[in-house]
């Protein structure tokens, strides 16, 4: 009898201990800290997008300087994955299992994100605002994954629609990076063209390691394309435009939001990016928007490195995590992963410096329950690297 009581007490204490522990100690959360992780290419072929992770860092520093979120400071863990999915996976695993991360923010690239999507989903770890507009994030939708970036698929549709309806282009070629990023754009473009009774005149894949674009441009020229949609890395896009110029092939070029940081594109292309039309997902750097001005002053001016530039990719690192920060604020002191998810699901038409963000209660059959941003607008690069707005925010 006595031994049964002892055993009962022991079982009860173990249950209480574990139950108590779980209730109090959410992974990556202490009374004073919230641990947030992010990967981003600081080296390698996609390093131009590395400023996303640095922008998030400055934003978190700004929040911490203002007292943090409900008394907790954000501890930000950022690592360089060089746009290499194997490194992304190793780094995420190491930080998650070594340090313990409460939630993951942004993360540049479709392929790096795909390398960790199952890992984070299985462990029910929130991942908010992947820095890529991939359809993979919502096919199928995942309870703990909240994309903010408008889909590449939709961007491509918006660009094609504009080219056909507003510019009267009918011979449309596509150059796409031969991975999920490029194929998302390709799919959107193809589907939009079909709705206008058109087909692509040529589709050219580009491998990440390709450096010589002459064969590509020769085939584009041969196709007689009057509009070329570029769904590639920044450096490939510039090389295609440059090689086309050298071969005196001058169609209208259009490109994805990843190539819409015009000052950078003009600098790299030595001015050849002028006239290119891009989709984009964030207010313009010089926009007369109070929030943009505040971020510029209190995050960028105060915390950015000396040689950093206030460009789209930099403040995209802020834009992608605005919903996460808002939801964490709404959680109050009782910050858990479940509460964070619940608060994110309550966001309706949340407006930061990007598109309006709305989520819904999780429905595994409804991708829109998790695709937060669906608006985009089109801009054209001017001679001085500034942008001319061609459209307002559009719902695609």
């Amino acid at each position, binding site marked *: 009898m006595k031994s049964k009581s002892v055993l009962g007490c022991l079982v009860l204490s173990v249950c209480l201990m574990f139950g108590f522990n779980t209730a109090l100690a959410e992974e990556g959360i202490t009374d004073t800290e919230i641990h947030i992780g992010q990967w981003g290419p600081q080296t390698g072929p996609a390093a131009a997008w590395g400023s996303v992770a640095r922008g998030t860092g400055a934003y978190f520093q700004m929040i911490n300087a203002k007292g943090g979120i409900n008394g907790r400071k954000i501890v930000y863990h950022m690592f360089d994955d060089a746009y290499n999915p194997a490194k992304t996976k190793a780094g995420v695993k190491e930080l998650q299992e070594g340090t313990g991360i409460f939630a993951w923010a942004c993360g540049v690239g479709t392929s790096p994100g795909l390398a960790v999507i199952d890992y984070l989903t299985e462990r029910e770890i929130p991942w908010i605002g992947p820095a890529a507009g991939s359809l993979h994030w919502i096919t199928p939708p995942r309870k703990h994954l909240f994309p903010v970036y408008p889909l590449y698929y939709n961007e491509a549709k918006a660009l094609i629609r504009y080219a056909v309806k507003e510019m009267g282009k009918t011979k449309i070629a596509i150059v796409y990076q031969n991975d999920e990023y490029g194929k998302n754009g390709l799919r959107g473009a193809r589907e939009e063209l079909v709705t206008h009774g058109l087909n692509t005149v040529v589709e050219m894949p580009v*491998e990440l390691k390709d450096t010589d674009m002459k*064969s590509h441009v020769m085939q584009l020229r041969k196709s007689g394309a009057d509009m070329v949609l570029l769904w590639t890395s920044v450096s490939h896009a510039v090389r295609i435009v440059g090689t086309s110029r050298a071969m005196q092939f001058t169609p209208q070029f259009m490109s994805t939001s990843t190539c819409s940081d015009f000052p950078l594109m003009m600098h790299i292309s030595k001015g050849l990016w002028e006239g290119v039309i891009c989709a984009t997902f964030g207010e313009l750097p010089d926009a007369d928007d109070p929030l943009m001005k505040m971020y510029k002053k209190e995050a960028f001016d105060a915390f950015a490195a000396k040689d950093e530039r206030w460009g789209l990719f930099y403040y995209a690192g802020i834009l992608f995590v605005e919903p996460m920060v808002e939801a964490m604020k709404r959680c109050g002191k009782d910050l858990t992963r479940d509460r964070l998810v619940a608060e994110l699901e309550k966001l309706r038409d949340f407006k930061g410096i990007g598109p309006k963000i709305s989520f819904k209660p999780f429905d595994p059959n409804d991708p829109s329950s998790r695709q937060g941003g669906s608006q985009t607008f089109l801009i054209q690069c001017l001679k001085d690297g500034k942008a001319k707005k061609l459209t307002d925010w559009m719902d695609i």
Partner: protein
Amino acid sequence: MIDFIQTIVSGIAAGSSYALMGLAMVLIYKTSEVPNFAQGELALAASFFAYMIMESFGLSFFLALPCALSFAFLLGCFLEFLVLRRAKTPNILSMIVITIGLEMILLGLVSWKFGADQKTMPFPISPYDSMAIGNIFISTLELVTVFVVLAIMAALYLLLRFSKMGLAMKATQQNTMAARLMGIRANRVLNLTWGLSSVVGAIAGLLIAPTLMHPYMMWDPLLKGFAAAVMGGMTSLPGAVSGAFLLGIIENIFGTYISIEFKAVVAFAIIVIILCIKPSGLFARHYVKKV
């Protein structure tokens, strides 16, 4: 037909940057029988050095050019003297591993100092200006590169064929001990070869940088240059250049008429095929070393 001619011209243009890297590799191989995988990063360091002095000190390209080439020469000599010469009981495998190590160190240093963002090298010729003969186009920069390649190849050929230095390099490669017994200062010959090859690589880097400038910019030209040198023959300067032009042409024909997706791997398929069929390369004379 116009398309085919354009493909050939584009191939020659693409091959010109491979040719410079191939020449640099052949130069060291001719003296030490070691393929130098640090060649690309030696060129990278010199290109970024030129960029730095132009950006920080406002030097013009024509002043920065001799400074960068001198830097490349000294860097090549320095690495040979400080690292390769110190290798104990050196064999070819360990020397190759050392050059790969040097390559990683130089890449790390350049990335650390200049960051990974793409830069724009100030250059007198725009990489996107072109010349046209009828409907055939070639970029002005690539045309300049082709002429530079041919000039360097001729200069190096004359140096190796008719100068005492060239004879000493050949002797050092064929039998270092015998060369030493004949009074050739083999270490000095090796040292100068590293310096010279570094200069040739640096010229390649400076001609590539106006189009593409970031820490990984030399990987592709190095690998393609190596493939070209293997194809043409690792001991033949005209072989390396012909191999490079041939490689550029094959790549472009393959990309235009067969598969653009597999264009990037053609070079490596060629290495495998050449090594199986004619290991000494298409244009090199095979010689048997007496033992």
